[in-house]
């Protein structure tokens, strides 16, 4: 395995240690063997564009390592983040199945590995291996669930502070491991989104995000040091959130 950007590049899907935990890649060995033959592995730096909104679909991407943001343009021409893709997700499925342009721009948020499979190869792959179809359905189901979750969030949140509190609490579901010097009730998270990106995520301005975070800090709810944020008072953040 080659090393790059401080992570191991997974060259061989059949030997990937993560596949059992991944939604799409946990396939029977024969199917994995074919996947290995048809995929093209690439490693991208932070900020790399995998595809552009409006671009004709070329194929799908399996995000092996790293995270990526899916951005689209709102009715008012503003950039908004639809969601953050996590390792193991398949990206570009909707465009491939509807044979329509990619609906979002996919940009890596950190150094990432993605396996690209061309549209033709993917269609044959799915035809030859029924399990792949099931995995695709599961992935699309997951994506729908996330999208409706976001829509519910639109209907539930009245204020920007509430939306930001909700976002921070969502990130807290994947906390960093406990370390010395941190109190038991404190939760540390790694936030790689910039304030501008957080603004795109909640539909507000960067200035408002900055003001709200500053307010959280002054109240003693949050401590921010670079990309590491520590939630000091989770209860207060939870009290802000309606449901």
């Amino acid at each position, binding site marked *: 395995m080659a090393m790059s950007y401080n992570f191991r590049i997974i060259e061989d899907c059949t030997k990937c240690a993560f596949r059992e935990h991944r939604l799409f890649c946990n396939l029977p060995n024969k199917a994995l063997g074919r996947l290995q033959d048809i995929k093209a592995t690439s490693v991208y730096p932070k900020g790399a564009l995998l595809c552009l909104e409006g671009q004709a679909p070329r194929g799908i991407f399996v995000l092996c390592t790293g995270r990526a943001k899916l951005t*689209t343009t709102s009715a008012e021409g503003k950039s908004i983040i639809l969601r953050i893709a996590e390792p193991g997700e398949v990206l570009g499925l909707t465009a491939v199945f509807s044979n329509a342009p990619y609906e979002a721009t996919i940009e890596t948020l950190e150094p990432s590995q993605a396996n690209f499979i061309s549209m033709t190869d993917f269609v044959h792959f799915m035809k030859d291996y029924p399990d792949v179809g099931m995995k695709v359905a599961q992935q699309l189901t997951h994506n729908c669930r996330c999208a409706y979750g976001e829509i519910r969030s639109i209907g539930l949140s009245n204020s920007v502070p509430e939306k930001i509190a909700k976002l921070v609490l969502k990130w807290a579901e994947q906390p960093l491991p406990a370390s010395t010097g941190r109190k038991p009730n404190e939760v540390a998270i790694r936030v790689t989104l910039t304030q501008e990106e957080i603004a795109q995520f909640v539909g507000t301005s960067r200035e408002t995000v900055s003001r709200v975070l500053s307010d959280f800090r002054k109240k003693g709810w949050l401590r921010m040091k670079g990309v590491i944020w520590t939630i000091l008072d989770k209860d207060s953040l939870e009290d802000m959130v309606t449901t």
Partner: protein
Amino acid sequence: MSGEAKNTNELYALLRAELRHELAQHEQLITLPEGSTLIEHSVLPDHLVILNSGTVRVSVPCPRRAVSVTTGQQGKVFGMRAAISGELPEIDVICVEPCNITMVPRDAFLDLLKNHPEIYFAVAKVLSADLQIADHILRSNSRRALPSLRIKVPKPV
């Protein structure tokens, strides 16, 4: 179900004639009045619902207000995600005018899917269309808290 509807329905359009024929044996064609509920959130539907004609409102209920989208897309299939995953739907689908629908029992569909996994192509297409509607709502609203969030989705090609 009319031949015309069969050709335009997003599920059947990708199925072989034999599979369509097999599903047709289980179909129920119904006309529903305005205000009828086709899919109710948090209630597992026991049928796939194919909209042959008429207009429905798809809404995502929230305690404060519902985020809704109106669509009159002939051939739209509802209830696929619940059928495939067993997950409870997050949406309400309500007729805003008299609607002509075809109902396909979930169990009959799943039996067919088990024996003919190539149907997953059609399933993926239906789920992709669902996702496009959801993304369209997000795009149109930019996560802003508006007093009323009601938009109209253009009919897909």
